[in-house]
């Protein structure tokens, strides 16, 4: 049985003199994984490498135990919605999806049925018989997604899949990813919509200049960034008093009182000590309504890890 992981082992790829990715080692478990990084950081290269559209100059890749150099077996379990906008000339959305299913070996009747189902999943049933060339950007995005999911793959690779989608379709698309992930499959996506990545991802891979700068669950990644204190937003009554009590602690480096004076933004270098201090303050009779991490999101990680390199 194949290993249910996507593994990059010391993978490097150069386009002539230009670096694509450099010595990337990753083990991606099933679930939703987001590749995050600025333009040209190597996200698409990683996706192209794992689907065999480009080949590594060094290192090796396996996708659930299969090599990208074996498209016959790999693509049977992989669906890739690329960023490339073009569809075969003159093809309707339905043709585009049904045609690719013929290549998967489905009989024409089953291919048509699956194509119709896939288009329905992405809300393109009515537009399915219009030419792809006449589609809006969002519709093209969806038809590529339909093509990628039509054969019910184990690994779904999606390059900027939320670009150009309206809020309703975006929510439906995210639900589709979650459905895939819930069934033990891989969903690997790249995105610039950081808030959404934050909400939908089980884990993130942060890339800059062709190198992986951090990977894992967002909170775990956050914990590893020692030079940046953790930020917490505390909603409480008597904010000034709570602030003065917290300031007595060595691990607290900065406190800001929020505008409505009903809360504090606290920066601490030790999460455990901070939790203990809050407990003590609460036991002393102060009302702490809520405590929320303010920087356990991709935006903050992006800023901490990549901001300096942008």
């Amino acid at each position: 049985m194949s290993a249910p992981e996507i593994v990059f082992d010391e993978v490097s790829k150069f386009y002539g003199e230009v670096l694509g990715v450099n010595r990337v080692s990753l083990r991606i478990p099933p679930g939703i994984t987001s590749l995050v990084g600025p333009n040209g950081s190597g996200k698409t290269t990683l996706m192209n490498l794992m689907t065999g559209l480009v080949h590594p100059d060094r290192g090796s890749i396996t996708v659930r135990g299969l090599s990208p150099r074996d498209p016959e077996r790999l693509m049977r379990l992989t669906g890739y919605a690329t960023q490339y906008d073009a569809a075969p000339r003159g093809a309707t959305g339905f043709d585009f999806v049904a045609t690719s299913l013929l290549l998967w070996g489905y009989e024409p009747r089953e291919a048509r049925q699956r194509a119709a189902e896939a288009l329905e999943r992405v809300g393109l049933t009515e537009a399915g018989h219009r030419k792809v060339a006449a589609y809006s950007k969002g519709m093209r995005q969806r038809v590529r997604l339909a093509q990628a999911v039509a054969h019910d793959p184990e690994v779904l690779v999606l390059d900027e899949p939320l670009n150009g989608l309206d809020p309703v379709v975006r929510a439906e698309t995210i639900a589709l990813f979650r459905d895939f992930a819930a069934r033990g499959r891989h969903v690997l996506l790249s995105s610039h919509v950081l808030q959404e990545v934050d909400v939908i991802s089980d884990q993130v891979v942060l890339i800059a200049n062709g190198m992986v700068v951090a990977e894992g669950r967002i909170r775990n990644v956050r914990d590893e960034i020692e030079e940046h204190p953790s930020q917490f937003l505390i909603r409480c009554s008597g904010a000034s008093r709570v602030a003065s009590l917290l300031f007595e602690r060595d691990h607290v480096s900065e406190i800001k009182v929020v505008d409505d004076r009903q809360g504090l933004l606290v920066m601490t270098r030790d999460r455990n000590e901070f939790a203990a201090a809050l407990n003590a303050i609460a036991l002393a009779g102060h009302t702490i309504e809520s405590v929320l991490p303010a920087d356990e999101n991709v935006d903050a990680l992006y800023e901490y890890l990549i901001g300096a390199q942008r």
Partner: protein
Amino acid sequence: MTLNFRSRQIWTIARLELRRVFFSRRSFWVYGLALFPLLIFVMQTIAVEYQKRTLSAVNTISPALMDSVREGERVEAVLERLGKPSRDREYSFRRRERDGEEEVRIHNRQLHYWDGQRRANLIFQEGVLQNIHIRQLVSIDLQRLMYNGVFHYYYLKLAIFFGCLGIFMNLFRGEMLDKTLHFWLLAPARRDVLLAGKYLAGLLAASVIFGTGAALTYGAMLWPVESAEVRTFFAGPALEQMLRYSAAALLACLGYGSVFLAAGLLVRNPIIPAVVLLMWESANGFLPAVLQKLSVLHYVQSLCPMPAPVEEGTPALVRMFLAPAPATSWPLAVLGLCSLTAAILYLAAQAVKRLEINYGGD
């Protein structure tokens, strides 16, 4: 995966690709190349019919009367015996007999007669018949010679060559330009299966386009010829000749197709391989025997029913380029070309395995 499954994949790829090859805007000029000689022969037929009508409208004489005319006869005698000519043209010119002497005015007259098959052009000088030109307006032998020339110099060396360049180079390079190649590379098919499917599509399209073009042109070539003559021809070598021309066209597509498919995978600019191959093929006639076998034209010409015609008086250098290589027997020609094609396709299969998508950056 079984061989049967891969064969079905090849056929599926070919079927999908055929639509694109036949109806792509990039392919339309290929139809023009294939059908241009047909247009020429149709125009010839129209011209021949027009001439026949014009000549018959005035007078049609018997063949015996036409053959009875002799040089030295007076114009009046000819007119009296043969009757009104289809065309009568008089003109004069001046000629200086000897240096210093006065110019002499020479009176010429041309009479055209028509016997339903042949046209006689009788040229009289000062009323005396000087030259007799009798020729058939159209004959099957002349038409066959013309077709043979068109097939060798137009179809093989130009139309099929450049047509295959257009069709087969586009199979991969065109998709790279359209940014649609990933569609194929993301299919669960081996790269060599993809190559085979695309090659099959190109071959079918090129064979249909040029096979049909050559066959229709063959038909059009016979159109102006008298039906009795055509019937006799079809009772004899016509079908075999047509088959051999078609086989030559098909094998030319097979060979050039493989070369241009491989070139489309290896180089970006189609002009370079086209020029190199054109020079190589043109120089084939005077290459050493071993190198001659590395040419598509070498095998294909051997399949044609007649060698490429070279007119008397053609300059030696041009003759060297036009003269075909010594013919090979047809089984050897077919085997040789198939082996050459297989070798080129093997190289192409190695190249397609290394092929990467690079539409212009990450």
